[in-house]
């Protein structure tokens, strides 16, 4: 039985003449927590953003949550592919570095927006689920607060609750704590750790080595658009993981 939640083969992406992703293959099993590490400009954020097609790859095949999308040679998706992309996005969630909460909506309205306008869930039902999710990230009392009145850490927790509202099979985290002060990071990382324990499939681009060491099952290390190392967390942090990895780990 195939239990891959995310499988990509031959994924490539260039910005102009700069090749950001070079023929990437990656296979992520259901329930895995995978942290993608690598220096700036290694392509890790781009890789994450291609997985839900926020960034359109130049070539390759994606299989995410059972939806297969093959990037056509001319770059133009046909109707069937567009439908696959839409379905795939419903089964995945993304958490952004800059939160991207909707500023004209309260925390609760942010959380239920996808349920109401995408999944067409009745409002009363959506509100109940939204309150439950806000409680799960420790923000039950902030339901009616607008994002402008929330701290960075609280915003990111609302964003995580918003992602969870769609019952995703996998969550993509794009440097979720990079925009936060150190003292606010722990509350977000705490929520992510709890999530990892529930068996949620997670793909996390981050610079938080401690989080990687403690919460990840597996580390993917990228540099110059290729996967340099892909191994179990213990093996990655072991002393014999290779000269380049050791050099990287020393810098942080």
């Amino acid at each position, binding site marked *: 039985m195939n239990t891959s939640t995310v499988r990509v083969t031959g994924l490539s992406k260039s910005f102009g003449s700069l090749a950001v992703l070079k023929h990437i293959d990656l296979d992520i099993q259901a329930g895995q927590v995978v942290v993608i590490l690598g220096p700036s400009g290694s392509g890790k954020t781009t890789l994450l953003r291609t997985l839900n097609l926020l960034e359109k790859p130049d070539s390759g095949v994606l299989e995410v949550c059972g939806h297969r999308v093959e990037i056509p040679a001319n770059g133009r998706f046909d109707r069937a592919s567009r439908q696959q992309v839409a379905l795939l*996005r419903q089964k995945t*969630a993304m958490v952004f570095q800059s939160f991207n909460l909707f*500023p004209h909506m309260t925390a609760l309205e942010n959380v239920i927006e*996808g349920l109401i306008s995408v999944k067409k869930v009745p409002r009363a039902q959506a509100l109940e689920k939204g309150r439950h999710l806000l409680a799960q990230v420790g923000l039950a009392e902030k339901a009616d607060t607008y994002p402008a009145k929330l701290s960075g850490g609280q915003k990111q927790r609302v964003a995580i609750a918003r992602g969870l509202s*769609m019952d995703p099979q996998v969550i993509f985290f794009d440097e979720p704590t990079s925009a936060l002060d150190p003292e606010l990071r722990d509350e977000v990382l705490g929520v992510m750790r709890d999530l990892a324990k529930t068996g949620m499939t997670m793909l996390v681009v981050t610079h938080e080595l401690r989080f990687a060491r403690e919460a990840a099952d597996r580390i993917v290390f990228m540099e110059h658009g290729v996967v340099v190392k892909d191994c179990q967390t213990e093996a990655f942090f072991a002393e014999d993981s290779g000269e380049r990895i050791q050099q990287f780990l020393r810098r942080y």
Partner: protein
Amino acid sequence: MWDLFLRALPLLEKAILMTLGLGLSAFVLGSCLGMLIALMRISSVKTLKVIAFAYVSIFRGTPLLVQVLLIYFGLPHYGITMSPVPSALLALTLFSAAYLSETFRSGISSVDAGQWEAATSMSMGYWTCLKRIIIPQALRIALPTMGSRLIALIKDTSLASTITVMELTRVAEQIGASTFRYMEMFLMVGAMYWVINQILTILQTWLEGRWTRHMR
């Protein structure tokens, strides 16, 4: 001046309603058309983009007075005859739509790209995203400029006097002509335009504060 004001009052009352009616209806219709043009301008369809660009170029690049005269005096040559009020309303609508479309477009493009990405990543379609996420924010950004356009439009209705619409300026001109008291009449309507626009300014400021208070 008071006696003149009292004598002119019945006419001025009707004229104020005409000025306000023309200005506000043109603003509402112009906003609808302007939003349509703005959406055409940001669409990925080349033809729509070009049409929207040409529209703005023409209606923003020529004087409103010329547009008013063209519609009222020019169109009858092609069998299209309209009475003065609809002619003025059409010209004011087409003209304000050109400006308002640019106001909306700049509002839409100043909404952070991350908002589109957040909506897209939850599988929200283009139109739903526009309606629920982007336009509500764009309008908040565009509100001060929209207010300026409305005020400009109220003043622009005075050009309808050239095609015999009985609005404030035309009434002042007529009473002035029959009484030879031009100075007083034009001061009077000048003050009326000012008062109308002050009220609109206060309204805009109030709406702005109320509408954006959560986002600051």
